[in-house]
């Protein structure tokens, strides 16, 4: 490859992390930062023990407990034996291998993709992995971040490298002013509804355009978070002043002179003018409205005022069987509208939308109002720091007055691994990222939406168009 060939940011970061490129092998890619959690790491540590090897570089590894943890009474031992055992196993492993753990009760504990950025561990230009598909979140800072399986977690723990073929590149550009009631969650739900749950499989996405540029870091993280929901390996956004301002002064970020030096480097992380992407897509922000999903994969989304498609309207006949099954599961009729449909639960949380900005949005919307009687509302902050900030700003009081329950940080009802499960057959408007069958509890039914839409629904008790909400 000639040095002069124009490259995308993705290619630049990738190339600069290849330790070895050998004929007949995938690239050995160096990993700058490795996040681990209790669910996908125990078998990896076991592998190290069997081989009698240490963690390659503990300074590049950070652990937290998030998937399994209760969101009530977190100071007490975990009641459920298997969950407790898994968290304890993480504790023992981190101790034995010398890995920093932000355990339950620690000031820095939280959902792994929330704490990385807020602690300044996630930086531009890096390669970042975690045994979790939403590692794509970190890409908002202009880095290569992707989810891996447990065998790969073991590889990274053992060698700080991963064997990977370079994915293809896709550019998704969005320009223009977003409309009233539209937030970044709607942008990404819109994109996924356009390109489907598998439309970006095999690709690494770069989000660009002035709509993206004008978003805050938190909003950008929401977008990158859901890259995996269209099958993409990851998604990134070029770093800019917004990025640098967010990072500045964070706990583990480079400080002062070192920071300035880094910023100078990070400014070079741009896609060259003539660089070629394998695929380029363009959208107009004006076409995006508040979104909601109606089916059982995140590609099955529509504008909140739209009607669910009919079987005949589907582009591909092969999809009909799965489509019918999906709507049956959801208890919905093809061709019907969701607007006004009564719901049972509202979940505001997850690595998609449980940062302080999300909680502020919700609080602003519901201040002085009360939740509808037919709904139960859970607000689960993404981290201890988010929780503390929310309390400091008095958001907890607003939630309490509205009848919302502010819980302790964790993944919670995003995947229902702890007690926070939506009961069978019940409808939940959720700010999380997956509406798969049973994701929030066996036979639960999920509508994915933005924090704004979720907040409005909590007050009205039904699927609501935020633009009409007073």
């Amino acid at each position: 490859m000639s040095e002069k060939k124009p490259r995308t940011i993705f290619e630049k970061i990738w190339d600069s992390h290849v330790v070895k490129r050998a004929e007949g092998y995938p690239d050995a890619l160096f990993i700058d930062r490795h996040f681990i959690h209790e669910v996908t790491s125990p078998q990896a540590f076991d592998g190290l023990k069997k081989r009698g090897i240490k963690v390659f570089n503990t300074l590049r590894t950070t652990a937290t407990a998030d998937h399994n943890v209760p969101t009530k009474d977190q100071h007490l031992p975990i009641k459920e034996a298997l969950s407790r055992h898994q968290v304890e196993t993480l504790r023992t492993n981190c101790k034995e291998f010398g890995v920093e753990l932000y355990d339950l009760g620690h000031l820095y504990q939280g959902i792994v993709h929330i704490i990385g950025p807020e602690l300044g561990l996630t930086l531009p230009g890096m390669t970042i992995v975690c045994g979790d598909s939403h590692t794509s979140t970190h890409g908002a800072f202009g880095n290569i971040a992707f989810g891996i399986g447990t065998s790969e977690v073991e590889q990274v723990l053992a060698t700080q490298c991963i064997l990977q073929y370079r994915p293809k590149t896709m550019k998704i550009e969005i320009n223009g002013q977003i409309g009233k009631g539209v937030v970044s969650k709607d942008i990404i739900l819109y994109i996924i509804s356009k390109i489907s749950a598998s439309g970006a499989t095999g690709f690494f996405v770069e989000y660009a355009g002035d709509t993206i540029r004008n978003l805050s870091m938190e909003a950008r993280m929401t977008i990158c978070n859901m890259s995996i929901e269209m099958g993409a390996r990851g998604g990134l956004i070029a770093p800019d002043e917004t990025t640098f301002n967010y990072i500045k002064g964070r706990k583990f970020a480079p400080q002062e002179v070192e920071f300035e030096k880094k910023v100078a480097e990070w400014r070079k992380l741009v896609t060259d003018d003539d660089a070629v992407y394998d695929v380029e897509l363009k959208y107009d922000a004006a076409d995006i409205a508040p979104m909601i999903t109606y089916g059982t994969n995140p590609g099955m989304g529509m504008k909140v005022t739209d009607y669910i498609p009919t079987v005949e309207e589907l582009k591909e006949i092969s999809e009909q069987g799965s489509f019918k099954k999906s709507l049956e599961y959801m208890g919905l009729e093809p061709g019907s509208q969701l607007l006004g449909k009564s719901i049972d639960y509202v979940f505001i949380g997850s690595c998609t939308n449980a940062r302080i900005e999300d909680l502020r949005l919700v609080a602003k919307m519901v201040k002085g109002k009360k939740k509808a009687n037919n709904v139960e509302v859970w607000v689960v902050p993404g981290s201890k720091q988010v929780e503390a900030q929310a309390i400091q700003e008095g958001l907890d009081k607003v939630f309490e007055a509205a009848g919302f329950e502010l819980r302790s940080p964790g993944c919670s009802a995003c995947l229902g691994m702890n007690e926070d499960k939506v009961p069978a057959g019940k409808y939940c408007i959720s700010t999380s990222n997956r509406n798969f069958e049973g994701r929030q509890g066996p036979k639960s039914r999920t509508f994915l939406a933005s924090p704004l839409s979720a907040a409005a629904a909590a007050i009205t008790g039904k699927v609501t168009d935020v633009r009409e909400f007073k």
Partner: protein
Amino acid sequence: MKDKFITLRSTAVPLPNENIDTDQIIPARFLKATTREGFGDNLFRDWRYDTENNPVTDFVLNDPTYSGRILVAGKNFGCGSSREHAAWAIYDFGFRVVVSSFFADIFKNNALNNGLLPIVVSDNFLKQMIQAIKENPSTEIMVDLENQILQVGSVRETFEINAYKKTCLMNGYDDIDYLLSLNKEIREFDAVHS
């Protein structure tokens, strides 16, 4: 060292649903084990059993008509969560091959890292294959990894597989063996790359 994969002759189980995500393959509440074994019991748990834990009789894994070590599934198989437990569960249940017209990336890697062979075929071939199995559940399917051939009854199709991954599967190698051999280069890289 993993089990080696060379050839396989078996009947197959058809599961034509599209977009089967790893939450269906193994629901989150069964991810609490700290070992790799035993996940097969909960493979497709919520499709196999109802809320009272009774087997759902019309689900294909509960249907004695179909059996075998090959799972034939609809497109975009294994999307969603990165949980390797999905590959472990499929393997633990007894499958050695999954055929689909499209796999999600992370699942494909996880499968390959666990001696489970994901075979990509065209939409059309997949349709024919499912039809053939449904018409005659005892249809024998032959997978020849070395020559990259999938034979369904008398119909043959070649499939693509990355040469490196193929060598790993055929010899039971792990990526980690190769990476460990690069230790010195990686140390040097780590030292200059802050």
